[in-house]
């Protein structure tokens, strides 16, 4: 069996964060969580996860800022990031995804199982 992949979920809405955490744990992921961009950035640089699921609108530091900060640090240059949002500000996200993020998805339009599929696809597990 391959090594467990570590996923960092940065999301301010606790029920959303916990649903994702439980789903990924049941999919045999090592799960790290953070409630805002500031904590998420620190955790990402310290724990070096294999992938980051990143909410956009959050307190303290939003997801777009966190991504930029992450890419500024050599330790965070390569980790794939998938944006999660319920806002339609796709232009900004698309702009940020250019070479910086793997993609984005609208939470309400995706089944939780589809989110794990997308993550596995990004990690080359599918």
């Amino acid at each position: 069996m391959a090594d467990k992949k570590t996923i960092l979920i940065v999301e301010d809405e606790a029920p959303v964060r916990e649903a994702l955490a439980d789903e990924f744990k049941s999919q045999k992921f090592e799960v790290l969580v953070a409630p805002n961009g500031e904590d998420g950035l620190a955790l990402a640089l310290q724990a070096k996860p294999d992938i980051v699921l990143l909410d956009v609108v959050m307190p303290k530091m939003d997801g777009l800022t966190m991504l930029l900060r992450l890419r500024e640090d050599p330790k965070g240059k390569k980790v794939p990031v998938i944006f999660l949002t319920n806002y339609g500000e796709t232009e900004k996200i698309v702009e940020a995804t250019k070479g910086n993020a793997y993609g984005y998805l609208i939470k309400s339009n995706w089944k939780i199982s589809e989110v794990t599929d997308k993550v596995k696809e990004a990690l080359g597990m599918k």
Partner: protein
Amino acid sequence: MARLFNKRNLVIATFVIAIVLAATYTMFAFQESVSHPVILKWLGIFLALNTLWLVMLLREQTSVKELQGSIVSKNKALADVIRELDDSRRALLQVTDDLQKERDLMEEEKTRDEAFLASIADGVIAVGEDGKTYVVNRAAEEMLGIKARDSIHKSYHSLFQIQDERQRLIPEGEHPIKIALATRKKKVGSYYFMRPNGSMFPAAFSVAPVENRGPLGVILVFRDITRELEVDRAKSEFVSLASHQLRTPLTITSWYTERLLGKDVGELKPNQKKYLMQIYEANRRMIDLVNALLSVSRIDLGTFVIQLATVNPELILKEVLTEQGPLIKSKKMNIMKPDFKNIPTLIADPKIVHLAFQNLISNSLKYTPAGGTITIGAIMDKDTLTLSVTDTGCGIPKKQEDKIFTKLFRADNVKEIEPDGTGLGLYIVRSALAWAGGKVWFTSEEGKGSTFFFTLPRAGVKSKTAEKSLV
């Protein structure tokens, strides 16, 4: 002297002399002292002279009388003429007086009409058949930032220009005044009116032909609708915000229901599973509604982006049919697909093509009885790709055909079949396609089925920058 020797005096003189001679003769005849034949001779001469002068005098008096008579009659005629002239003069004075009154009345009416026209809060511009302005009211001056005195008898096109909501300058040939002048038909709509200083305002307008025993021109009436648009915008922004806020709880309900339905958290009893499925489906419907409302608000606000990519219609159709797979299967529908061999890819926003296929196919599935047929068509001609969805469903009632693309409208017959529809799908499809340079239309027969066609320009769709995606 001349007056002394006039004919009358000569007659009198000769008569007096003749009397004297006659008296002398009579006296001498009694006395017989003087040879009376000489007196008699002179008496004869004077009587003859007297007769001559008398005759002449009488003749003269006759002609004078005739002349006097003629003069009197001419005087009478002259008096008649003078009287007639006087009557005419009086009549003329009366007419002049009446005309003056009429002119005063007209002047008063004109002043009143001008005051009315000037006081209309809407802008009014009258344009003659030659395309030149002849009335520009005060509101038009103020709204357009022009002066009426500089704007009269000018080409309407030189006064101000108009743009549509996509900031496209309306060319001369599409100008509503030009169209109304050419077709003699009323035209209503809304555009952005540009002031000479470059600023602009949204305006609702009507252009109507003016006729009075023949065409006189057209009259443009317009109103600044900035406030209405602001209210509309606020409403759309509210819908957008509320919908975004709804998405998070809907996501939570959806994901936890999904986790409960999965096996990770333990087996459910059949009834528990059934109830959870109902919650999940209802939640899904709510998400679809929120998405539709968001799409409508983005269309109405013009804040959705058109992101271009190479679009393969066959692949998008496949995706949509996969999404609709469970319903196709449960209703045992026959799906007829076209041969895409001759249909090339084109540049468009795949989301818009997906949205059009998804709405039209989902409508056909909902409103066609089980076991029916849905036929997809694709034709590429010189300029356009035309895609179509034909079903054997309930069709559209003839009297409601013109409302089918209206926001929130649902035909009477489909409300009975599917009470939960939003009435937003076709509105979104039509609006999104319009932004993409395409269009949508249909043919239908109630009780037999419908065909919806939609097009995309072969030359490719133009991209549009904005913040939000069309869901």
